[in-house]
């Protein structure tokens, strides 16, 4: 079997098997318990029933995820540049960056609502906080891991500090940056959903998938709840697919990680 066909057929078979087990399990439950595990068919039905609400919520969550993700990228690049330029700055700030990552964002959601208001702003801040750390750590690592021989070459040709940063350190940090970006891309939709769940607002149809999740679970609309989770999954896949494409565009012609696919 050609490898490409195999790579499609095997996951498809595994998925079909999973759905089959799902149905078997569901119908082996006692009748009064069956509502706890909706079938895939019921979930698809929930999409039809709640299509408008889910679509609106998906758009709102996508907006929050995109804005938070973009802010995390922009600020992490700026901070990574600053951190890479001075080991003193690095040593001073690293513990606090770690602390930021360890801090459970959800605990601060209520106060965040008081600071910036419930809704999109809170969602963006929470997404930003969740995406920020892997981006800044990976990008900084990339910027300080430049091949020493290449740095010496640039010094030898009397490159200016700016030339060294933008012609040498930044391009050689790209593979690390994309590693961070890939991790952050999986976190962004989840971050936006968590943000919406804890600090969202339905004012002016501004509610996102997190808000819908609250509504569906309070109404015991479990097929719709599963549909909400499915939409979030798809959103995450789209984010990752976009980042993987960008990574391929930036790296495939020179970086060793793409070597096998090319030849």
């Amino acid at each position, binding site marked *: 079997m050609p490898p490409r066909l195999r790579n499609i057929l095997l996951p498809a078979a595994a998925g079909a098997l999973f759905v089959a087990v799902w149905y078997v399990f569901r119908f082996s439950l006692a009748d009064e318990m069956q509502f706890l595990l909706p079938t895939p068919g019921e979930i698809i039905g929930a999409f039809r029933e709640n299509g408008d609400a889910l679509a609106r919520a998906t758009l709102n969550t996508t907006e929050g995820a995109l804005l938070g993700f973009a802010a995390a990228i922009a600020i992490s690049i700026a901070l990574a540049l600053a951190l890479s330029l001075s080991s003193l700055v690095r040593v001073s700030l690293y513990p606090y960056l770690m602390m930021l990552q360890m801090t459970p964002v959800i605990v601060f959601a209520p106060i965040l609502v008081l600071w910036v208001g419930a809704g999109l702003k809170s969602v963006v801040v929470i997404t930003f906080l969740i995406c920020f750390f892997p981006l800044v750590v990976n990008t900084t690592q990339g910027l300080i891991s430049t*091949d020493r*021989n*290449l740095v*010496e*070459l*640039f*010094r*030898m*040709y*009397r*490159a200016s500090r700016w*030339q060294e940063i933008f*012609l*040498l350190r930044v*391009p*050689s940090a*790209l593979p690390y940056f994309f590693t961070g970006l890939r991790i952050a891309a999986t976190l962004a939709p989840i971050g936006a959903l968590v943000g919406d769940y804890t600090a969202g607002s339905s004012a002016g149809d501004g509610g996102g998938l997190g808000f819908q999740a609250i509504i569906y679970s309070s109404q015991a609309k479990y097929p719709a709840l599963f549909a909400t989770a499915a939409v979030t999954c798809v959103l995450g896949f789209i984010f990752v697919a976009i980042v993987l494409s960008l990574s391929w565009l930036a790296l495939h*012609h*020179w*970086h*060793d990680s793409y*070597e096998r696919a090319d030849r």
Partner: protein
Amino acid sequence: MPATPLVDLRDVTKRYGDGPVVLDRVSLAATPGDFVSLIGPSGCGKSTLLRLIAGLSPLTTGAVTVCGHTPEEAAAELAFVFQEPTLLPWLSVAHNVAVPLQLRGAAPAERAAATHRVLELVRLADRAGAYPRQLSGGQKMRVSLARALSLAPRLLLLDEPFGALDEMTREHLNEELLAIRELQAWTAFFVTHSVAEAVFLSNRILVMAAGPGRVHAEIAVPFAYPRTAATRLSREYLDLVAEVSRLLRSVEGAAA
């Protein structure tokens, strides 16, 4: 009238901090057109000597002048070829070659012309669009050489550039290097571990000794340029290789 030296070292001593003396009162001069090989046991300071001439590392005492100036002032006149090809993997061959000119702020047209010219010299004009990972070890080294030549330097400093290559590739590159030298007048300092390579390339061989690093002996290589693959078959060439090898062994024996 003796030619003014292009490179002049007077009583150059080098120590790293409180460590041992790496180079002890080395004096030497190279006139334009010289091809000087530095050969000697590991730890004799031959690579350090090259880095001092390049201004990549400060002297402890003594003086180095290149074209009558300090190495820093003469930066535009000299180019360095490292042991590794040190190519930027994300740039094509042509862009790699253009890096020194780009850093110097040369106009795109000037860069393109110079790049094409030196890639012709190293016979890689047809690989201008390739990326380093698509090249063989020998090709990478030729790109590195082309990059050094792109600035039309008066002094070329080469630190064991062909050390990692197989014998055949190394011999071919030696011949190419001399062929390029027929077209471009530069002076060279060439660090190597290979006696055959030193004899083939140079008109002067400095045999260095370690502990502390110093010039032990200088050997003049009398064969006329241009030299070709046939030079390696001559009786005189083989005799000189044997003589330099003996001398090198005696220096290494004394150190051990």
